[in-house]
């Protein structure tokens, strides 16, 4: 066992989870590309470790939102039927889809995230923080998007905020604070549904996932403390660039090209 790799994994998780906290996304979207490209870690191992990171971030940051009453737990449990069912399907597909296709899908999700970050989330008319109508006629669209979010989460080891956020903001018309808190609350359960299956299959390597989990918890806690007010447009654009670069790298990996020589 070499302490070097563990330290590197810990640092990656710490950094990406802080970033995730700042950007309101789960860390998985950064962890998987960094592990596969710079750490030369097998994609399935990276996805398994990333799912643990997603659970850790979700659990570590849930308490304050719950205490403030921002998390809508009834809506969460209802939508979790769709996300966990999506995760169940994703677990099966993950075994069938060739690795190159997974890289390709990942690249698309990264681009989608970049696009979402450029567009920003805007508060739609209606809805105060307290009274939340579920706008029932839009529920089928919301549930469908949530199913997709669960599927992608299990397939790629990410939190799938990219799909959850449009589902909550646009389809269900929730206030941003409520949808962020509720999405964060749901991400843990969704990831756990697939992480359990990955663990049983032996796809979660302790030597990789353990340092990642620790780094994620610390990163999520620190991120929430320090970075609350950091929201300049320059910073956003920098992250958009990072996402686009990672997407390009994943796209190349899909075609079997890796430009980065191993770092650690």
């Amino acid at each position, binding site marked *: 066992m070499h302490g070097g790799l563990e330290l590197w994994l810990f640092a990656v998780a710490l950094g990406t989870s802080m970033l995730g906290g700042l950007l309101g996304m789960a860390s998985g979207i950064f962890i998987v590309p960094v592990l596969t490209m710079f750490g030369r870690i097998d994609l399935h191992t990276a996805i398994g470790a990333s799912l*643990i990171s997603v659970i850790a971030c979700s659990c570590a940051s849930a308490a304050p939102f719950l205490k403030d009453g921002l998390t809508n737990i009834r809506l969460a*449990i209802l939508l979790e039927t769709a996300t966990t069912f999506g995760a169940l399907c994703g677990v099966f597909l993950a075994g069938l889809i060739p690795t190159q296709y997974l890289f390709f899908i990942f690249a698309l999700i990264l681009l989608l995230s970049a696009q979402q970050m450029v567009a920003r989330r805007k508060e739609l008319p209606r809805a105060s923080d307290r009274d939340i109508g579920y706008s029932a006629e839009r529920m089928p669209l919301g549930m469908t998007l949530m199913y997709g979010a669960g599927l992608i989460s299990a397939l790629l080891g990410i939190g799938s905020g990219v799909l959850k956020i449009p589902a909550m903001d646009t389809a269900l018309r929730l206030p941003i604070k409520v949808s962020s808190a509720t999405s964060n609350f749901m991400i*843990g359960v969704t990831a*756990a549904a697939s992480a359990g*299956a990955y*663990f049983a299959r032996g796809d979660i390597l*302790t*030597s990789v996932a353990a340092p990642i989990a620790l780094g994620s918890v610390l990163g999520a806690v620190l991120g929430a403390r320090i970075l609350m007010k950091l929201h300049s447009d320059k910073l956003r654009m920098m992250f958009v660039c990072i996402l686009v670069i990672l997407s390009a790298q994943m796209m190349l990996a899909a075609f079997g090209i890796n430009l980065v020589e191993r770092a650690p």
Partner: protein
Amino acid sequence: MKTDTTLPPRLEPALGALLYHGTILASAVIALGLALAVGLGAAGMRVAAFGIVLFILLPVLRVGAMLIFFLRAGEYKFGAIAALVMSIILLSFFLGAR
């Protein structure tokens, strides 16, 4: 701030406490395991793996807590929804294991 009076014991803070303490416990077990692994190797890694299992179980426990709460509060519709989520998760665990 006005508090919701429709549900006497509030579930949200209890769930927050469960997730908060669970995170600390799972992290501590993983940290202990990694520290032991430096000296003991594989045995330490098994402790760390147990910590990872704790993390995977934590959100499942949270669904279980919601299930019990909803049933006790007489909210049978949400109790049934929580039971459905729980069964999908368990199904995923068992089918995924094969």
